């Protein structure tokens, strides 16, 4: 066991559009790699076993749990965190809606919530409130602003449809 944990693995991946090369402990999870090695602390570790969604990031176009994926598994992957998605402006309308609707309180779940919501919004059509609730039920919010979160996502979907971008 000890030998396995002391192993270091070389990885090369793209994070938020930039090439990254690193040597990581074999047992390091992607979320810890992002937070501790790259200083990208937007994704948060909360339940640490894939239940709560606070660590949700985008890997090769898919929303995944940063606490269930090892950094070594992300070798060659294209990873996007809330910081990178903020810089590109892809999330700006959704982020504005979250602030306007008070869809965040303590804010700890928010980055993961945004990445999960963005995945839903990328699908065609305007999701129903029921569909939004279903899609986001893997993202916990203990301040329990669910109502406002659904409001923010629904209004963003509507606005994108009105602009003809979804």
């Amino acid at each position, binding site marked *: *066991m*000890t030998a396995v*944990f*002391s192993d270091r693995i070389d990885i090369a991946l793209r994070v938020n559009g930039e090439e990254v090369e690193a040597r990581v*402990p074999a*047992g*390091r999870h992607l979320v*810890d790699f992002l*937070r*501790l090695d790259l*200083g*990208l*602390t*937007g*994704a*948060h*570790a*909360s*339940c*640490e*076993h894939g*239940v*709560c969604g*606070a660590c949700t990031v985008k890997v090769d176009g898919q929303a995944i749990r940063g606490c269930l994926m090892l950094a070594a598994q992300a070798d060659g992957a294209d990873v996007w*965190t*809330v*910081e990178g998605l*903020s810089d590109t402006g892809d*999330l700006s309308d959704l*982020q504005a809606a*979250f*602030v*306007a609707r*008070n869809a*965040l*309180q*303590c*804010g*700890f779940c*928010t*980055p993961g919530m*945004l990445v999960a919501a963005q995945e839903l919004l990328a699908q065609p059509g305007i999701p129903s409130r029921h569909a*939004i*609730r*279903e899609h*986001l*039920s*893997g*993202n*916990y*919010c*203990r*301040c*329990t*602003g*669910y*109502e*406002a*979160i*659904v409001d923010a996502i629904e209004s963003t979907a509507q606005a994108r449809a009105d602009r003809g971008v979804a």
Partner: protein
Amino acid sequence: MNAHLKMDKPDDRNRLDDMAQGLLGTAMDRPEGPLKVTGTATYAHEAHQPGMLHGVLVRATIARGTLDGVEAAAVEKMPGVRKVMWGDKFLRNPAQGTANKAPVQGSSEIYYIGQPVALVVADSFEAARHGAQSLELRMTAGTAVPDAKADGVAVERPEKKQSSMGDLKAAMQDAAFTVDQRYTTPGHNSAPMEPHSAIAWWDGDQLTLHASNQMLKYNVNEVADSLGIDPENVHLLAPYVGGGFGSKLGISPDAVAAALAAKELGVPVSVMLTRQQVFENVMRRSETAQDFQLAADKDGVLRGIGHTARVSQLPDESFAEPVTQATPFLYKGENRETHMEIVRVNQTCAGSVRAPGEAVGLTALEIAMDELAVATGIDPVELRKRNIPDRSPGEDKPFSSHKLAEALDDGAAIFGWADRKKGATDGEWLIGYGMSSAARVNMIGESHARVTLNPDGTLLIETDMTDIGTGTYAILTQIAGEMLGVPQDRIETRLGDSKLPKSAGSGGSWGASSAGSSVYMACEKLRQTIAAKLNCDEGDLTLKDGTATFANKQTPLTDLVGDAPMVVEGAIEPGKTQKDFRQATFGSFFCEVGVNSVTGEVRLRRMHGSFAAGRILNAKTARSQCLGGMTFGIGMALTEELIQDTRDGHLVNHDLAEYHIPVNADVPQLSVNFIAERDPYANPMQAKGIGELGICGAGAAIINAIYDATGVRVRDLPATMDKILPGLPDV
């Protein structure tokens, strides 16, 4: 300059209603929102330092006994491990809210499974975790009391927690209608999304600590006392806190462990609790067993209330879930008994979880009231209105302000209570409707804030108050902006730094009222100073958008400030209005549930809450607080339950997969409405606490709706399928 108010007299001037800026009470966006949606708000485990090491706590695996030693050498040989630590400074459990001193300390005495008794520090988090998992503890088992419900368990009945009035026994005998039932609630965990974490480093004898804390004024003293150092040498930072719900009122074991390790190794050390450790270490709400006796006359008016509650707690902890807290004042009845019983157990420490007391005590009372409504045949809303007292009957105190009747009527009207249909179905779902009252005691704590009006017309607000998601950044900005006529974009609010003026902190729903009033006091003094410069009375001064107006003459604030900033420290402290009057917030809950006639599954279909909490400071953050409280109530009614192994007190469901907090799909359409109220006894803003009211009684409305749908009365929460299914009619 200073401005200090002890709240000995009511303040019914309602000065904030006279202000012109139009910022307070609006749905202003929270100023820190942009940081939180971009992942740039810095929580406790984000102040990563160069050369920082990682510590992982090691848990005791026996319920009672001694730690005689640890096999440190073997672990210290592991790659990357720097140090194994244990000793007499480790916290047995977190400090209770406002403790202001160290909790019980020491690794050598083990009191419960999960007690953090050692720390492994390593170069990487992974190496520390591996070391912690590998560390062998040499323990000698003692005799534990693992099960609070075991036969023959010793029961404490503290004299101060018993009260009697009149003759309840006679009232029960003479009553036209009675309820005499036991209600039980399980333990709960706050489960904030941010696990408790700390990063510590030392500069000589100066400790800097980033930690997940709600009440820095007290937390600094708790840290200092735990480490045996001067509080002056502790700099505690918590600018953003990822939820608290009571679990971060006092310091937790991670903070002291990080500080000890950083001192020992001379470098910054971070310690983050795993989610399992959060469940095991950081305060559970005690389970409760509550015996209610209600004695009512033929009109449903209560003549007597009896409430005996049993809770559990670790030895040597003074906190006991104050289950009976609302019983003395909510309803009429001249014959009353309230009694608290405490059982000492070897389990995770019991402490504050959102609305300690009313969250479970009022929920049980409101189920009992529904049973009385059924027995009397009186509409549950009407029954409650008939029982609203003129003064607090159990305390013989006048109310400061009382809006329960209005909240009941308002909630009933918005929900459409009168239009509900008995025996409705929707496919295989049985539909039912339920309601309950809400109530929560209201208070303030001593709080200080500094407000600086700069020569350029900008405002700076500084206090060690925290924003745990509640909206402190927003409301303090709004209070100051309203009082001084400064727009939001010219105001900065700085929080969560122990070097700033000391506030009451976040807890007990008192944060907004306490910290807000200190800002109000400072601003009132600044208004007086500005008025003096214009030779007018403060009351005749209009401040709006950076301009002072008096007698039709407009002067820019920047012209009045001069070259040096105007600085005032404002302070508020509780006084006679808190002692001599029953201050409380009130409300009502109404809900519709569907119960599956085949499986017994309960789905909440819609829920409404109407609340009176004095002046509402921010319409949006206040609504969110209530929605959050109601959702906690949904969890309490349907899913949340800590389960201990009765053999050793071990917490079985110690993670978010097995402890079921409500998720999006569990929470349907919720709505909130506020009743207009100004409570002059509360504080100079006439505002009251809003963070906990939404959970107080919410679960009862759901339980009562389940009864309405099915005729099954659940008296043992949560209302899981196994408790409902046996009572359902055959399909």
